[in-house]
C-alpha cells in the first residue's frame, strides 16, 4: 500500500522522460497509473464488504511516532476509489485538453504528485504523516492553480490558496500534536478510545478550533471560502479534480474521520452546523449571480461543502449516511459538469453563459453529459443526487429543536443549487444557437468518455441504489458508526421530504426562467466591502507586507554604522543588564575590590607605562586627522600588545603579534599613503553619542574580565594534560607550539586554509583592478 501511494511521486519523476519518448501517447500512457491504482484499491472491496479493515505498517521515524501506516476501511476505500477513478478520467481528459500546450509535462508532474498526496491523506492512519500529505496537496494545488503563471491573476490566486490552506494546515498540525499528547497515540484508528478524555480535557475548545481551522480552510468553509472561486484560474481538469471532487473534500473527510474522536459535543455541533449551514446558504446565493461557467460551479461546490460540513455537525447516523451519499453524488455530477465546462471553453473560447446557447447542435454528446449531470445535481428523480437530497431533508427535519432553521436553509440552498445547475449544465445547450467561435465541433473521445461515464453512473447508481452503492457506502458509514446501517432506495413513499423536493423543483424552475430579474435582485443587495473575508485576506496580506517594509527600512537601512550601533546597543542592554542582576555571588564593586587587591602587588612600572601608552596611542588614533598618523598609532598599540605578551609569558604570541603588526602597517601604508586626510563627516553630537556607546561597550569588556578574575573558577585540566604530555607524546618542549602543530593540528590546517582563501581573495581583487585600468 505504501508503494501504491508513493507510485505517484515516482511517476512524477519520469514524466519528462515519457514525453520525450513519445509525446502523442504519453498522456494515455500516464493514465494507466490512476487506472491501475483504481484496480489496486478495488481488489480490497470484497474484504471491506466482508467487514474487514486492512492495516499496513511502515516505520518511518518511530522515535517521533511518525509512521507511514495505511489503513483501508469503508470510508477510506470510498475516497481512494473516488480519487483514483476521477484521476483516471482527468488524466485521459487532459491528454487531449492540453495536447497543444507546452506545459503539459509540468501538468502531469504536478497532478501525479497531487494524486499521490491525496491518496496518502485518505488512507494514512498516522496523523503526523497525514499532515505531510495534507500539506503536499496544498503545495501541488498551488502549483496547479498558478499553472498559467504569466497571468497575474493566476499568481495571486495560487498564492492566496497556498497561504490559506497551508496556513490552515499548520493549525491542523498543532491540533493533531495536542491530540497525540493527550491520547498518547498518533494512530487515528486508536484514537476513538480516548474520546471522553479528549472532549473533557480543558484544551478541548482549542483543539477543536485549531482542527477546524485546518479543515475549514481546506474545504473552503466561511470565512475561508474565498480562495476556491479564485482557484478557478487553474486549467479545467484541475478544477474538476482538485477543486471539486477531491482536495476540497479532504477537510470534510478529516471531519468525518474525527467525528468519533472529537465530535458529539455541543461545540462541535454548533461550529460545524453553524459555519456549514451559513456557507451553504451564502455560497449558493452568491453562485446565482455568476456568469462564468467555472465560477458558477465553484460557488456551488462551496455550497455543497457547506452542506456536508453541516451534516457532519448534526452528527448522528442518519446525517452521516446522508452526507456520504451526498458527497458521492456530488463528486460524480460536479466532476462531469466541470469537464463539460472545459469542453465548452475549449470549443467556443468562452465560459461566459451570456454568450453561449443552443450548443447541442454541435456538441450533442457534451449536451447529453451536461443535462444528465445537471439533473443529478438538481436532485431530480431517479438520479443519485435525488437520494442525497431526500436524505439531507430527512436529516434536517430530524435535527431536534432547530430543525425549522436547518430545513429552511437546506431548502433555500437546494433551490439555488437547482437554478445554478440549470444555468451551467442545461441552458448553454438549449435555445437559439449562439457562440463567439465559428468552429465549434465535438470534443475528442478522450475528453467525452470520462464525463459520459460519470453522468451515466449518476443515473445508474440512482436507479439501482440498493444494489450498487449501498454496500460500500454502508461500510463507509460503519467505519464511523460500527453498528449503523442504511438501506438506500429511490422511493421512500409520500412524505414531507418528497413534498419539499417538489417545492424545490417548482421554485427552482421559477428561478431558472427568470434569471435576469433574479440576478438584478441579488445585485441590489449591497454589502460593504469590509464584510468580505476576501478583503480581510487582502488587508492582512498587505498589512504584513507594509510591516515588513517598515521593519526592513528601520533595521536594514543600508548604513553599516547603524547596524553596528544596533548590535552594540543590544549587547550593552543584555550583557550589561545581566551584571546588575548579578547578586547571587557578589556585586560589581565587590568584584572590583577583589580584583584590585589581587593585582596590586604584581603591578609594576611596566604595567603603568604600558597602560598610559596604550591610552595615548588609542586617543591619538581616534582623533587623528591624518591617515598615516592613525595607522602609526595602530602600529604602536599592536607593538605594545606584543610587549604585554612578552611580559606575561607568551613569547610565541609576542613574535607573531609583532610580525603581523608590522605587515599590517606596511600593507595599510602601501594602500593608503596617497589618500587625502580624513574628512570629518559627522557632527559633534553624533560623535559624542558614539563615544558614549563605545565607552559603555569597553566598560562591559573590562567588567567581564574583572568578574572572571574575581569569581571565575578556572579549569586547568586540559592545560595540565598538555604540560604533562607535550614532550612525552608530542616530542616538543615549547608547549604552545606542540598544541598548534600536533595536538590541534587540524585547527592549524583550517587556519592555513582560511589564510590561503584570503590570499586568493586579495590577489583577485588586485588583478581586478589591473583589468579595470586597462578598460
Amino acid at each position, binding site marked *: 500500500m505504501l508503494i501504491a501511494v508513493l507510485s505517484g511521486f515516482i511517476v512524477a519523476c519520469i514524466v519528462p522522460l515519457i514525453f520525450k519518448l513519445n509525446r502523442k501517447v504519453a498522456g494515455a500512457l500516464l493514465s494507466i497509473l490512476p487506472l491501475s491504482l483504481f484496480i489496486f484499491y478495488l481488489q480490497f472491496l470484497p474484504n471491506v464488504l466482508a467487514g474487514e479493515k486492512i492495516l499496513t505498517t511502515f516505520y518511518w521515524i518511530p522515535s517521533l511516532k511518525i509512521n507511514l501506516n495505511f489503513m483501508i476501511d469503508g470510508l477510506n476505500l470510498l475516497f481512494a476509489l473516488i480519487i483514483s477513478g476521477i484521476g483516471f478520467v482527468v488524466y485521459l481528459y487532459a491528454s487531449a485538453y492540453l495536447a497543444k500546450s507546452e506545459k503539459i509535462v509540468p501538468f502531469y508532474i504536478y497532478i501525479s504528485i497531487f494524486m499521490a498526496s491525496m491518496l496518502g491523506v485518505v488512507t494514512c492512519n498516522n496523523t503526523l504523516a497525514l499532515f505531510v500529505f495534507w500539506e503536499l496537496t496544498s503545495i501541488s494545488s498551488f502549483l496547479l492553480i498558478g499553472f498559467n503563471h504569466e497571468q497575474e491573476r493566476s499568481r495571486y490566486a495560487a498564492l492566496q490558496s497556498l497561504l490559506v490552506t497551508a496556513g490552515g494546515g499548520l493549525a491542523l498540525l498543532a491540533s493533531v500534536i495536542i491530540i497525540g499528547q493527550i491520547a498518547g497515540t498518533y494512530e487515528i484508528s486508536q484514537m476513538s478510545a480516548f474520546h471522553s478524555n479528549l472532549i473533557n480535557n480543558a484544551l478541548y475548545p482549542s483543539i477543536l478550533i485549531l482542527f477546524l481551522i485546518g479543515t475549514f480552510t481546506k474545504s473552503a468553509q466561511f470565512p475561508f471560502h474565498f480562495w476556491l472561486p479564485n482557484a478557478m484560474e487553474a486549467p479545467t481538469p484541475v478544477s474538476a479534480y482538485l477543486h471539486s471532487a477531491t482536495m476540497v473534500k479532504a477537510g470534510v473527510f478529516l471531519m468525518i474521520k474525527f467525528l468519533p474522536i472529537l465530535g458529539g459535543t455541543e461545540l462541535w455541533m454548533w461550529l460545524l452546523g453553524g459555519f456549514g449551514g451559513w456557507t451553504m446558504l451564502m455560497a449558493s446565493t452568491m453562485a446565482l449571480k455568476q456568469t462564468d461557467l467555472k465560477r458558477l460551479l465553484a460557488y456551488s461546490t462551496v455550497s455543497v461543502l457547506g452542506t456536508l460540513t453541516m451534516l457532519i455537525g448534526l452528527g448522528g447516523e442518519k446525517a452521516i449516511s446522508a452526507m456520504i451519499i451526498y458527497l458521492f453524488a456530488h463528486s460524480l455530477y460536479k466532476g462531469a459538469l466541470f469537464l463539460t465546462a472545459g469542453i465548452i471553453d475549449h470549443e467556443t473560447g468562452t465560459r461566459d453563459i451570456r454568450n453561449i446557447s443552443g450548443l447541442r447542435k454541435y456538441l450533442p454528446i457534451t449536451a447529453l453529459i451536461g443535462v444528465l449531470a445537471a439533473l443529478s445535481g438538481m436532485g431530480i428523480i431517479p438520479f443519485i443526487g435525488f437520494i442525497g437530497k431526500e436524505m439531507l431533508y430527512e436529516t434536517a427535519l430530524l435535527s431536534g429543536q432547530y430543525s425549522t432553521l436547518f430545513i429552511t436553509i437546506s431548502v433555500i440552498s437546494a433551490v439555488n443549487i437547482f437554478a445554478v445547475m440549470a444555468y451551467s449544465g442545461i441552458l448553454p445547450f438549449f435555445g437559439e444557437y449562439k457562440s463567439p467561435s465559428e468552429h465549434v465541433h465535438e470534443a475528442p473521445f478522450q475528453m467525452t468518455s470520462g464525463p459520459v461515464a460519470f453522468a451515466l453512473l449518476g443515473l445508474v447508481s440512482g436507479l439501482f441504489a440498493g444494489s450498487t452503492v449501498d454496500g460500500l457506502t454502508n461500510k463507509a458509514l460503519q467505519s464511523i458508526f460500527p453498528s449503523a446501517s442504511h438501506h438506500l432506495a429511490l422511493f421512500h413513499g409520500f412524505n414531507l421530504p418528497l413534498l419539499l423536493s417538489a417545492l424545490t423543483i417548482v421554485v427552482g424552475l421559477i428561478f431558472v426562467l427568470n434569471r435576469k430579474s433574479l440576478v438584478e435582485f441579488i445585485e441590489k443587495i449591497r454589502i460593504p466591502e469590509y464584510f468580505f473575508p476576501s478583503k480581510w485576506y487582502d488587508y492582512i496580506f498587505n498589512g504584513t507586507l507594509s510591516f515588513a517594509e517598515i521593519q526592513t527600512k528601520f533595521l536594514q537601512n543600508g*548604513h553599516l554604522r547603524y547596524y553596528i550601533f544596533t548590535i*552594540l546597543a543590544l549587547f550593552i542592554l543584555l550583557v550589561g543588564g545581566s551584571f546588575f542582576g548579578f547578586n547571587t555571588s557578589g556585586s560589581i564593586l565587590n568584584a572590583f575590590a577583589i580584583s584590585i587587591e589581587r593585582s596590586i602587588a*604584581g603591578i609594576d612600572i611596566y*604595567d603603568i607605562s*604600558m597602560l598610559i601608552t*596604550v*591610552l595615548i596611542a*588609542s*586617543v591619538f*588614533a*581616534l582623533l587623528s586627522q591624518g*591617515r598615516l598618523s592613525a595607522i602609526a598609532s*595602530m602600529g604602536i*598599540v*599592536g607593538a605594545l600588545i606584543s610587549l*604585554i*605578551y612578552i*611580559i*606575561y*609569558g*607568551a*613569547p*610565541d*604570541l609576542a613574535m*607573531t603579534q609583532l610580525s*603581523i603588526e608590522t605587515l*599590517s602597517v606596511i600593507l595599510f601604508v602601501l*594602500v*593608503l599613503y596617497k*589618500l587625502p586626510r*580624513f*574628512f570629518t563627516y559627522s557632527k559633534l553630537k553624533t560623535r559624542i553619542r558614539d563615544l558614549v*556607546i*563605545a*565607552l559603555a*561597550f*569597553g*566598560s562591559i*569588556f*573590562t567588567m*567581564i*574580565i*574583572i568578574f*572572571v*578574575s574575581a569569581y571565575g573558577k578556572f579549569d586547568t585540566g*586540559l*592545560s595540565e594534560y598538555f*604540560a604533562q604530555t607535550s614532550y612525552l607524546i608530542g616530542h616538543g*618542549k615549547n*608547549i604552545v607550539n606542540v598544541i*598548534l602543530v600536533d595536538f590541534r593540528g587540524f585547527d*592549524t590546517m583550517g*587556519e592555513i586554509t*582560511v*589564510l590561503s582563501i*584570503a590570499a586568493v*581573495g*586579495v590577489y583577485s*581583487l588586485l588583478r*581586478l583592478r589591473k583589468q579595470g585600468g586597462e578598460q
Partner: protein
Amino acid sequence: MEFVLAIIVGILATSAFYLMLRRSLVKVILGMVFLGNAVNLTIFSVARVTKGLAAFIPENASTLEGTYADPLPQALILTAIVIGFGTQAFAIALFRKAFQKVGDDDLDKMNSTDIMCNEDIPGDK
C-alpha cells in the same frame, strides 16, 4: 595584573567601536584591527595570567610542573591573530578596490549597488 589588562582591554574595545561607528571606511578597518586585539587580550586575561613564566619544558625535564603561563589560550590566540591578519588584508584590498570605484571612503556613498558605478553605465551621467 588582571586589573591592568582589564583596563587596557576596555580602552581598546572603546576605541574599536568608536572607530567602527565612523563613516570613513579606513577608520572602520582600523576599528576591526583594534577589536581583534581587544578580543585576543580578553581571552588572554581570563585565563591564568602569570608574569615571565612561559610554557616551556625545562632543558632536562620531560614534563612541566609548578606555575606556568596557560598554553591553551595562547595557542587559540595565535590562530586568531593570524586569521585576523588574513581578514584585515582582505579588507584592505577590498577597500582599495572600492575607493577606486567610488573615489571616496565614505560608507554612505557605498550603500547602493549602482550609484557608485555611474561612469560604467553609458548614457547615465
